[in-house]
């Protein structure tokens, strides 16, 4: 699966670069500036760290439909999807992903006192919903999410581990390069954006192949 995801990354390199310049880097910069605003302007009793973590989570989940469509169209041997179709995928599914993410994030944060069990359930749903958001009815979306959640259950923790570890590894390797300089706030923003543009496509291709059932014989996916 990892080899296959790197193959897709290699085949569609130009498209992924254009998409990162158009969507990934502006979104990351916007979220980073919003995090900075929350940290400077909010008081201590308003929990600015909660807003910051929410923006980091949303930064990942909003990008999933774009690269998922690219991976699925490649695996089904369809015609090339245009850049506009892929960016319209981002614009179209913004509302539903935000509407699902905000209440589940609040529930997960409030439920962290109960041995982190509600947190795990809510964050798994937050991770899985963007993969199945391309349905006509909202009920179908949650039905498919429930099916994957029933099949995978505890092994979703491994996926969280993969996502977090890859981020931390690449971030620490990248920040070695400018460790001894006098660093600015903008340096971190730009490096963060470049790292996100680098790893998110590979991660999302890998997760798509894990969750989305693709049957290349009958040319459809579940």
């Amino acid at each position, binding site marked *: 699966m990892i080899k296959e995801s790197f193959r897709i990354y290699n085949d569609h390199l130009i498209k992924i670069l254009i998409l990162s310049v158009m969507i990934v880097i502006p979104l990351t910069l*916007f979220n980073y500036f919003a995090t900075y605003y929350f940290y400077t302007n909010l008081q201590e009793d*308003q929990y600015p760290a909660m*807003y910051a973590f929410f923006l980091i989570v949303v930064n990942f989940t909003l990008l999933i439909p774009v690269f998922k469509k690219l991976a699925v169209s490649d695996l089904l041997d369809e015609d090339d999807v245009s850049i506009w179709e892929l960016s319209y995928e981002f*614009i*179209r*599914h*913004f*509302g*539903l992903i*935000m*509407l699902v993410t905000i209440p589940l994030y609040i529930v997960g944060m409030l439920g962290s006192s109960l041995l982190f069990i509600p947190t795990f359930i809510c964050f798994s749903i937050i991770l899985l919903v963007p993969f199945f958001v391309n*349905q*006509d*009815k*909202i009920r179908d979306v949650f039905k498919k999410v429930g099916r994957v959640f029933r099949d995978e259950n505890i092994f979703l923790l491994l996926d969280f581990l993969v996502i977090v570890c890859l981020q931390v590894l690449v971030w620490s390797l990248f920040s070695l390069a400018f460790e001894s300089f006098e660093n600015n706030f903008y340096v971190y923003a730009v490096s963060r954006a470049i790292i996100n543009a680098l790893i998110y496509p590979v991660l999302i291709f890998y997760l798509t192949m894990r969750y989305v059932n693709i049957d290349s014989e009958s040319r459809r996916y579940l």
Partner: protein
Amino acid sequence: MFNLKKFIEALGISVIITIIAGFIIGFFEFPTVEGVIYINFIITYVTVGILMPLFNRKVPYTAAFLGAISMTLINIIFSINVLQLPIFVYPEIVNENLLASTIATMITAVIVVSILNRRETEAYD
């Protein structure tokens, strides 16, 4: 029939347009804060009025009305939770807010629906 998925999609697109418009307005130096607020208000609710009939072609006015009200509620909840402004203390402000946003959206929706109808009849001829 009223399609909830399409409704949420249109709401999300108008939220994106509001964010981008607010980001771009920040680069220009407006003399007053009220001007910024009015421009952002007009952009937001005109986009809601344009997008709701386009996405929910069967029930355009219901979708536009519900979209305006939910957009206002999102704004109010955001300003209560994040900016800590106690808006629900003043009922007149909530009333004004709902009235102005609904009027702006419905006027745009009427114009957009008439344009769409005319275009459809021309295509039919």
